[in-house]
């Protein structure tokens, strides 16, 4: 054999040894923790093969914009006051504008117009002027800042979800963004789907607000709610309406009837089984005195009075100062602890509370259930609040047994398919068929090794992709062999026939595979979940097909030709 052949052969052997090392732990199903095998990595199985939970969450940006602009409105009001500019009638407008572009308006004295404009330009650069007439300014969020808000909200949400899941304890979770407003969460092996969902989807916005007991005598909440009911604003416990939507429309309807800067919020009363039996309305001040952002820690503890689990929290130094002042100023009044706009409890402040410690008591139910709820609440409080409300757009759960069935069926079908192809090739092309089978086997080995090496995920369509690669890879061999047959028929000598067969076939194979790869590439860009897995294996398969057809198959053919040369009357078995 020539030296160059041996050189190439050596390269191939190196590739094979490496690929073998990569694939061995997966194929032999080694226990990675116990084995002495030096390479400790297995193929990643997709959720459809190992079971688990896949979710797509959509972010509700509309409320984020609204919150942002009302905060800006408050700040602007404060700053104008500090500058002793008399502006009035600050209002957030949402009705006549698209939900992603809320506005604020206010009145200003005509003489101060330039000063107001200068202040907005200097300090409120995230706002844009959308209207200016007769002593009214109307402002909206600027386009670039809207983009910043979106990006920040998305990134923060991912961060918060990641923190929560880390505390929940899931091995190899994946939390990624999809597009500009969606988050994909993949949790392999999770069984308690409802719990995982409530842990992830909960906003966990903790607020401390004062209960308005002063006006309690003049405002009869049950009468007001009765009035709303007549207008069709009512909550049906069995219906599909969201409770938060009901509360929002109720507050909008009663806005004119309630004392200024107050709102209605509810506490849930649960029966023994944990089911909501009734909801108690509270009249509370809208102003948030202390928020969950000032929370330092939250832990499960037992309430000494009821002997039930509860969540105790401690505030940061800043929060503790605020809390100290708040409780000192309001002795005898009630403080509402509001979580996600629901009043958890409203204890009366007995004395000034220093040190920033408090406790959230939970609803009723069996001990285990309350403990679970306390644990989850402590987790979400520690991990921080989500910056926006999340909606479950898509949710897929795969049980573990289905995944195992799929692996078994998929591999079995793949092996049967490959065996059929191998038999046919050997039957049809004889010795050359054996060469094709050898290069196909190596092809599959390389595909799997690359999958392990890249840390790509194998899904059920991915297994189908590998099987399909065999079908398609055969094509390159067929193209080459049919070419060689033609050359032989046209009377060329053995060596020349093989040489020109390979050469002529190469460009065809290259063109065909490139377009194939283009289709797979599009699939990779647009596909999600399992389909991505299919595209990845298909792409890797195409690369390996090119390599084996051009390099491996040719190498083996040269060996075969050398062996033929020793015979007296060589004929190609093709």
């Amino acid at each position, binding site marked *: 054999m020539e030296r160059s052949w041996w050189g190439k052969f050596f390269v191939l052997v190196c590739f094979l040894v490496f690929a073998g090392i990569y694939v061995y732990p997966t194929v032999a199903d080694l226990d990675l923790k116990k084995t002495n095998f030096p390479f400790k990595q297995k193929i990643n199985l997709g959720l*459809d093969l190992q079971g688990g939970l896949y979710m*797509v969450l*959509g972010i509700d940006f509309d409320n984020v914009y609204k919150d942002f602009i009302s905060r800006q409105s408050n700040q602007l009001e404060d700053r104008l006051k500090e500058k002793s500019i008399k502006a009035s009638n600050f209002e957030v407008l949402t009705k006549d504008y698209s939900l992603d572009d809320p506005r604020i308006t206010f009145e200003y004295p005509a003489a101060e117009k330039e000063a107001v404009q200068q202040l907005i330009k200097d300090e409120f650069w995230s706002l844009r002027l959308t209207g200016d007439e007769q002593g009214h300014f109307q402002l909206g969020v600027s386009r670039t800042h809207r983009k910043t808000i979106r990006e920040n909200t998305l990134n923060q949400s991912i961060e918060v979800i990641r923190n929560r899941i880390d505390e929940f304890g899931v091995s190899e979770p994946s939390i990624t963004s999809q597009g500009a407003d969606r988050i994909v969460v993949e949790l392999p092996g999770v069984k308690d789907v409802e719990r995982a969902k409530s842990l992830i989807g909960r906003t966990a916005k903790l607020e401390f607000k004062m209960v308005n007991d002063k006006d309690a005598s003049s405002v009869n909440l049950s009468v007001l709610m009765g009035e709303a009911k007549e207008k069709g604003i009512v909550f049906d416990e069995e*219906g*599909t309406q969201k409770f938060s939507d009901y509360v929002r429309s109720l507050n909008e309807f009663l806005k004119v009837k309630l004392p200024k800067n107050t709102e209605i919020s509810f506490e849930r009363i649960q029966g023994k089984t944990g089911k909501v039996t009734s909801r108690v309305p509270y009249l509370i001040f809208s102003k948030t005195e202390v928020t969950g952002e000032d929370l330092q820690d939250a832990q499960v503890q037992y309430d000494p009075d009821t002997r039930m689990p509860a969540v105790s929290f401690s505030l940061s130094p800043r929060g503790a100062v605020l809390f100290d002042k708040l409780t000192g100023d309001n002795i005898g009044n009630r403080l509402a602890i509001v979580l996600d706009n629901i009043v958890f409890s409203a204890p009366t402040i007995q004395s000034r509370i220093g040190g920033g410690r408090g406790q959230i008591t939970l609803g009723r139910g069996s001990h285990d259930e309350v403990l679970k709820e306390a644990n989850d609440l402590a987790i979400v409080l520690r991990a921080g609040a989500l910056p926006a409300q999340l909606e*479950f*757009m*898509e*949710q*897929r*759960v795969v*049980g573990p*047994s*289905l995944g195992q069935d*799929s692996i078994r*069926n*998929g591999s079995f*079908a*793949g092996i*049967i*398919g490959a065996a059929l*192809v191998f038999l*046919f*090739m050997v*039957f*049809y*092309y004889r010795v050359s068929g054996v060469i094709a089978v050898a290069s196909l086997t190596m092809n599959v080995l390389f595909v799997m090794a690359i999958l392990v090496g890249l840390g790509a995920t194998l899904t*059920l*369509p991915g297994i*189908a992709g590998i*099987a*399909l690669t065999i*079908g*398609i890879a*055969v*094509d390159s061999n*067929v*193209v080459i062999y*049919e070419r060689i*047959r*033609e050359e032989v*028929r046209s009377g060329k000598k053995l060596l020349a026939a093989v040489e020109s067969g390979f050469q002529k076939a190469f460009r*065809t194979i290259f*063109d*065909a*595979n490139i*377009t*194939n790869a*283009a*289709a*797979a*590439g*599009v*699939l990779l860009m*647009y*596909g*999600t979940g399992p*389909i991505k897995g*299919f*595209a990845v294996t298909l792409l890797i398969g195409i690369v390996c097909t090119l390599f084996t057809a051009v390099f491996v198959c040719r190498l083996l053919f040269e060996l075969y030709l050398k062996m033929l040369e020793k015979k007296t009357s060589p004929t190609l078995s093709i």
Partner: protein
Amino acid sequence: MLNIIRPGTNIDFASKRHIFLSLSVVVLIATCVLFFVRGLNYGIDFSGGAEIHLSVPKAWDIGKLRKELTAGGVEGLKVQQIGEPSANEYLVRAHGDEKSLGTVSGKVNETLQKTFSPTDFEIKRADVVGPAAGALLRKQGFLAMFYALLVILIYVAIRFDSRYAPGAIVALLHDSLIVLGVFMITQYQFDLTILAAILALIGYSNNDTIIVYDRVRETIHMHPEYSIEKAVNKAVNETLGRTIVTSLTTFMVVSSLWFFGGQVIKNFAFALMIGVIVGTYSSVFIASSVIIFITNYQKKRQAFENKKGKKRKQYNVRPEPKLH
């Protein structure tokens, strides 16, 4: 040497091209009519909804489950038994808005717990796709198909000749539409995996087409005196053996996936099976016929314009690029 197609075979495909083209046009029109008459049976991936695959220990009265779910505001409820009758596996499908869909899985679980002990039944798979997500997936899916075709069109136009590109695209559209048509007739569920199958098919069928085209180009280059019909005939006949062998092996693989691959990829494999058959047909009969059609059309137009005395650019086949 075994040969499926004897060397020197010369089937006159070109003269029968009108038959093939009209056959395909009829089938395509039928597909379009079907689309409006029957439409695709969109799976929950595209229509939104819930789909729960569960297995229970014994035959089971599904009436109760149906009643409770309907009471819970779930619409379009369908329960059917799947797989072997002895396996007692059921598929529950439902429609509704995001909120009611979110509760379907929990309600099914609750109902099952009333009848069986928790270790006996199993929810094997529970997919919930909100209507908004479904619409998004549908849009993205069809965009993906569009981009795949566009990329191939551009590649073929650059690598071959602008005259080859339409044929390749016609063939691919033809294949995808016929697979869609078969799914309309059978009313099998059309979901994301089927879409992936069609995209894979676009790649595969184009592979076939390119190999035929490559040979057409080579034949024209070697025998410039041949008429386009003769060149196409020679090329198709010479590549016929390869086309059949490759289609056969690919078909072996996808049919074994269909037969042994299990419930989850049965329809995926089915789409590929149809696709391999149609794809082979289209590259042999349709793609090559379109080249003849376009070449003849260009010749006629050129002759017409020459008559009018205008000198136009000559539509010569671009010589084969050297690649050594």
